[in-house]
C-alpha cells in the first residue's frame, strides 16, 4: 500500500512539474509577432553620468581609456592563417592596445568549431564580453545571455553616424526580433558590391569572334549560350577539345561545397529570375515586390524559366553535368589547363586563378575576364539587397560584471573598433607608413616587401615577402566588416574593380525585402515545414537541370509534390508575419 501511495504522489508531482514546464514553454514562446519598426534615424545621446569620464570617445576621436582596461573577446581562428604570438606582441592586438589602452584577452577557437564552442561557453555562463563573427544570433537571444544592443546604440557615435548617413533602418529591421530589439551589431555597408560571377578565357572568346565586352551590357542567358556555342565550335576546330567535351565545368556546385543544392551556379541563375535556389535557397520564401507579399519561389513560373535556362546549357553540351557532383579541384584544374573556357569566380579568387594559370599555361598565354552576369526575368544584379554583414554580440556577463558605466565604456570601445575608419584601416591594412602607404588620390598600397593573401597581394615566387596577415593578423575575418564603398573597394585589384563597376553600371539594385520577425515557435514551425520541402525541391531541381527529368512534362508533378509537403503552411506563416 505504501508503494502505491508513493507512486501516486510521484505521479502527481511529475504531472505538476510537466504542467509547469509546459506553462513556462508557453510563456517563452508566446511572444507577439507584430511587426515592429525601428527608428529611421538614431539620435546620439550621452549617459547621465557623462562628466569626467575615464576615457576619450566620440565621432572622429580615437577611443582611449585613462587606465588600462582588459576585455575578453572570442576569436574565430582560421587554420589557413592561424593566430600566432606576434599578433599580440607586435601585431593587430598590440596596435589596438597602444592606441586605446585596452587589452583584448582573446579566447580563440578554430574557425570550424567556432560557433559550436562559443555556444557551449555562452550556455555554460563562460561567455566573453565581445563576441564577433556572428551570422545568425537566433540561438542566443532567447537565453538572456546576450544584451539587446539596440537599447544602447545611441551611445555609439560611429555606429549611429553610419546608420544615419546611409539610411540603414530598413536593413536593421531584417535582424530585429519580435520584441522590437536587435541583439547583434551588424557589419554595415554603404552598398553591396558584386562578389560571385564567371571568369572566361577572353583570348579564346575573342578568337571565336564573340565581342563579350559589348554583348554583356544587356545580354540574357540565351545570348550567353549562343556565345558559348561559338566558343566551343572554335575550340573544336582548333583541336582544343572534342565535340563531345564540355567547355564549362564549374566549382562550388558539387556535393561538398554545393551542399546538394547546386551551390553557387544555380543560386546565381535563379537570382536573375527573382527566385531562390542553390546556396541562396534558404526556405524558398521570397518577397515579391509586385504582389507586395512573400511567395514560395520554387513553384513559380519564374522558377520554371530558371530551370529551363540552366538545363539548356547541359542540353547543348556546354555545361558538364558532373558539375553538380564533382570536387571543386576537378573544375579548377580543367580551367587552369585550358580545357574549359568559363568558370565561377569571386573577388578573392582572381589573383589565385591567375597565379595557377601562369604556372600551367605560362604568362601571356591566356587572358581572363570577369563577366557581367546575364539578365533573366529582371535586370537586377545578383548582389544581396541587404546591406548587412556578420556582426558582434555583447554578452550579458559584460553588463553584469562591468556595471552600467563600465558597460558604456566597453561598447564605446567596440564602436571605435568595429565602426571607425581608423580601426577599419588598422585592422585591414596595418600601420600606415609601416605596412601600407596612401597616395594623393587616396589609393592604398602595401609597402614593398609585404604581401597579404587576404587583400589579394600575392607573395613572389621565392616566397620572400612577409604576409601581414600571417605575421601580424591584419586583414583577418574577425574585424573586417562592411564600411563605405570606398573602404570595401580599397584593396580590389583593377580587373576585379572593373567587373564590380560594370555590374553597378549595367544592372539594377534588387529591392530590399521588408523585415519580418518570427517568434521562436514560428521559427520552429517554419523549419519543420521547410526542411523536407527544400530537400524535395533540391532533388527535383538537380534532376531537371541535369536532364534526368523533363521539365515541361514533370512540372505539375513537381509542384504537387511541394504542395503535399505543406507549401501553403509556409506561405500562411509569412502572410501572418507580413500583414
Amino acid at each position, binding site marked *: 500500500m505504501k508503494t502505491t501511495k508513493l507512486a501516486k504522489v510521484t505521479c502527481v508531482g511529475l504531472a505538476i512539474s510537466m504542467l509547469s514546464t509546459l506553462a513556462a514553454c508557453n510563456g517563452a514562446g508566446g511572444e507577439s509577432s507584430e511587426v515592429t519598426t525601428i527608428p529611421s534615424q538614431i539620435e546620439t545621446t550621452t549617459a547621465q553620468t557623462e562628466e569626467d569620464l575615464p576615457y576619450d570617445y566620440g565621432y572622429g576621436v580615437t577611443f582611449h581609456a585613462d587606465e588600462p582596461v582588459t576585455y575578453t573577446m572570442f576569436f574565430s*581562428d*582560421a*587554420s*589557413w*592563417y*592561424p*593566430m*600566432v604570438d606576434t599578433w599580440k606582441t607586435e601585431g593587430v592586438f598590440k596596435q589596438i592596445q597602444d592606441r586605446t589602452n585596452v587589452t583584448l584577452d582573446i*579566447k*580563440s*577557437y*578554430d*574557425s*570550424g*568549431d567556432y560557433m*559550436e*564552442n562559443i555556444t*557551449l561557453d555562452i*550556455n*555554460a*555562463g*563562460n561567455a566573453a564580453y565581445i563576441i564577433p563573427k556572428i551570422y545568425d544570433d537566433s540561438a542566443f537571444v532567447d537565453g538572456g545571455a546576450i544584451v539587446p544592443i539596440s537599447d544602447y546604440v545611441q551611445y555609439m557615435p560611429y555606429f549611429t553616424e553610419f546608420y544615419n548617413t546611409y539610411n540603414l533602418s530598413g536593413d536593421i529591421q531584417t535582424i530585429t526580433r519580435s520584441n522590437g530589439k536587435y541583439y547583434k551589431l551588424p557589419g554595415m555597408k554603404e552598398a553591396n558590391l558584386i562578389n560571385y560571377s564567371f571568369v572566361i578565357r577572353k583570348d579564346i572568346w575573342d578568337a571565336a569572334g564573340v565581342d563579350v565586352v559589348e554583348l554583356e551590357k544587356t545580354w540574357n542567358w540565351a545570348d550567353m549560350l549562343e556565345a558559348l556555342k561559338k566558343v566551343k565550335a572554335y575550340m573544336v576546330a582548333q583541336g582544343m577539345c572534342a565535340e563531345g567535351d564540355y567547355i564549362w565545368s564549374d566549382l562550388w556546385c558539387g556535393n*561538398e*561545397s554545393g551542399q546538394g543544392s547546386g551551390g553557387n551556379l544555380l543560386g546565381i541563375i535563379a537570382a536573375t529570375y527573382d527566385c531562390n535556389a542553390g546556396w541562396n535557397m534558404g526556405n524558398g520564401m521570397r518577397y515579391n515586390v509586385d504582389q507586395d507579399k512573400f511567395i514560395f519561389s520554387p513553384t513559380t513560373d519564374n522558377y520554371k524559366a530558371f530551370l529551363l535556362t540552366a538545363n539548356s546549357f547541359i542540353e547543348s553540351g556546354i555545361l558538364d553535368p558532373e558539375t553538380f557532383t564533382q570536387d*571543386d*579541384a*576537378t573544375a*579548377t*584544374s*580543367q580551367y*587552369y*589547363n585550358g580545357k574549359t573556357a568559363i568558370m565561377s569566380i*569571386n573577388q*578573392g*579568387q582572381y589573383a*589565385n586563378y591567375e597565379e*595557377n594559370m601562369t*604556372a*600551367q599555361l605560362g604568362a601571356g598565354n591566356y587572358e581572363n575576364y570577369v563577366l557581367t552576369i546575364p539578365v533573366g526575368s529582371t535586370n537586377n544584379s545578383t548582389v544581396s539587397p541587404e546591406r548587412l554583414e556578420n556582426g558582434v554580440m555583447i554578452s550579458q556577463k559584460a553588463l553584469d560584471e562591468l556595471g552600467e558605466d563600465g558597460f558604456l565604456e566597453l561598447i564605446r570601445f567596440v564602436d571605435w573598433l568595429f565602426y571607425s575608419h581608423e580601426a577599419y584601416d588598422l585592422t585591414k591594412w596595418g600601420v600606415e607608413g609601416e605596412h601600407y602607404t596612401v597616395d594623393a588620390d587616396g589609393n592604398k598600397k602595401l609597402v614593398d616587401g609585404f604581401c597579404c*593573401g*587576404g587583400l589579394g597581394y600575392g607573395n613572389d615566387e621565392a616566397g620572400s615577402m612577409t604576409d601581414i596577415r600571417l605575421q601580424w593578423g591584419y586583414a583577418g*575575418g574577425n574585424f573586417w566588416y562592411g564600411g563605405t564603398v570606398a573602404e570595401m573597394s580599397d584593396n580590389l585589384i583593377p580587373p576585379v574593380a572593373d567587373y564590380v563597376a560594370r555590374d553597378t553600371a549595367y544592372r539594377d539594385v534588387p529591392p530590399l525585402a521588408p523585415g519580418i520577425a518570427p517568434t521562436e515557435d514560428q521559427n520552429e514551425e517554419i523549419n519543420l515545414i521547410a526542411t523536407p520541402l527544400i530537400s524535395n525541391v533540391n532533388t527535383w531541381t538537380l534532376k531537371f537541370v541535369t536532364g534526368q527529368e523533363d521539365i515541361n512534362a514533370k512540372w505539375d508533378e513537381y509542384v504537387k509534390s511541394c504542395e503535399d509537403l505543406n507549401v501553403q503552411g509556409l506561405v500562411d506563416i509569412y502572410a501572418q508575419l507580413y500583414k
Partner: protein
Amino acid sequence: MSSIDNSSPEIHVHNPKNKIKESTGYKVFTVFNTIIMILVSFATLYPFLYLVSQSFSSEQAIIAGHTSLIPEGFNINTYIYVITRYDCEFLKYYLNTIIYTVVGTVLSLLFSSVLAYPLSKPKLRINKFLSPFIIFTMYFGGGLIANYVLILKLGLKNSMWGFILPMLISTYYVILMRSFFMSIPKDLEEAGEIDGLNKFGVFWNIAIPLSKPIIATMTLFYAVMYWNNWFNAKLYLQDKAKWPVAYFLQTIIRGAGASDPDATQMSANIKSCAMVLTVLPIICVYPVIQKYYVQGMMLGGVKE
C-alpha cells in the same frame, strides 16, 4: 575362437599431397572470392595510396589534376614545410599526442583494471549496487553542456587532464576486463590468500600476471583511442600549444574545405602530408598488432 584379423590397421599419415579433391564449384568460388577480395583490398588501399602519392607530388601537378598512384614532380618539400612551419608546431602537436597517449593509456589501464577486478567477484555485495550505475553510463550521458560545465568548474579546461580524464575509463573495456578476470580460476586466488596475500596482493601478484592478454589488448585499444581523439581537444583545449596532432589535422582538413575562398589556398599536398604523418605510427604498428585487435574482441567476451 574367433579369427583374429591380422591385417595391419590403416594408418592415416598427414601428407600434404593427399588433398581432398576440390570440386569444380569450390574452385570457381575460390577464384571469384580471391578476385573480389583483391578488388576490395585495392578499393580500400587506393585512397590511402593516392594520399601518399599526392603528398609527394608537386603542388602544380596536383592543381593540374595529374596526380595518380605514382607521384608527379616527386619532392619532400611539403613534408619539410609541414614539419617546420610556425616553429615546428606540427612536432609540438605530435609530442603532445605521444604524451597524452602514454599517460592516458597507463592511467586508463590502471583505473580500468582496478575497477574491473572487484566487479568480477559475484559474491561482493556492493557489485549489485555499483554495476547498474556503471552500465548506465554506456547508454546515457550527461550531455555536452553538462560535461562541459563540469570540466569548466573543475578547472580542467585548457589542461592535459581536461583531455585525458573524460576518457579515462571506458565502460565497455571495463566489462571486457571484468569478464576476463572472472575466468581466472578461484583456486589460484585462494592459494594466494592461504600463502598470506591480501586482496590487493592477490590482484597484483596473481590476477594481473595472468591477465597479460587482456591487458595487451586494452593497451592497444586505449592507445588508439587517445591517439585518434580530437573531440575532447576541440571542447577542452583552447590553448593551441596543448592540441594533439589529431585535432590539428582536423582543423587543416576542415580549413581546406571551408567556404571562405581564402581557405582553398591551403594546398592539397599540405593536407595529405599532414594526414600521412598523423596516421603513420598507427599504419606501422597495426600490421604487427592487428591480431590482438581481433583476439581482444573475443577475450573476455565469453564467460566460462
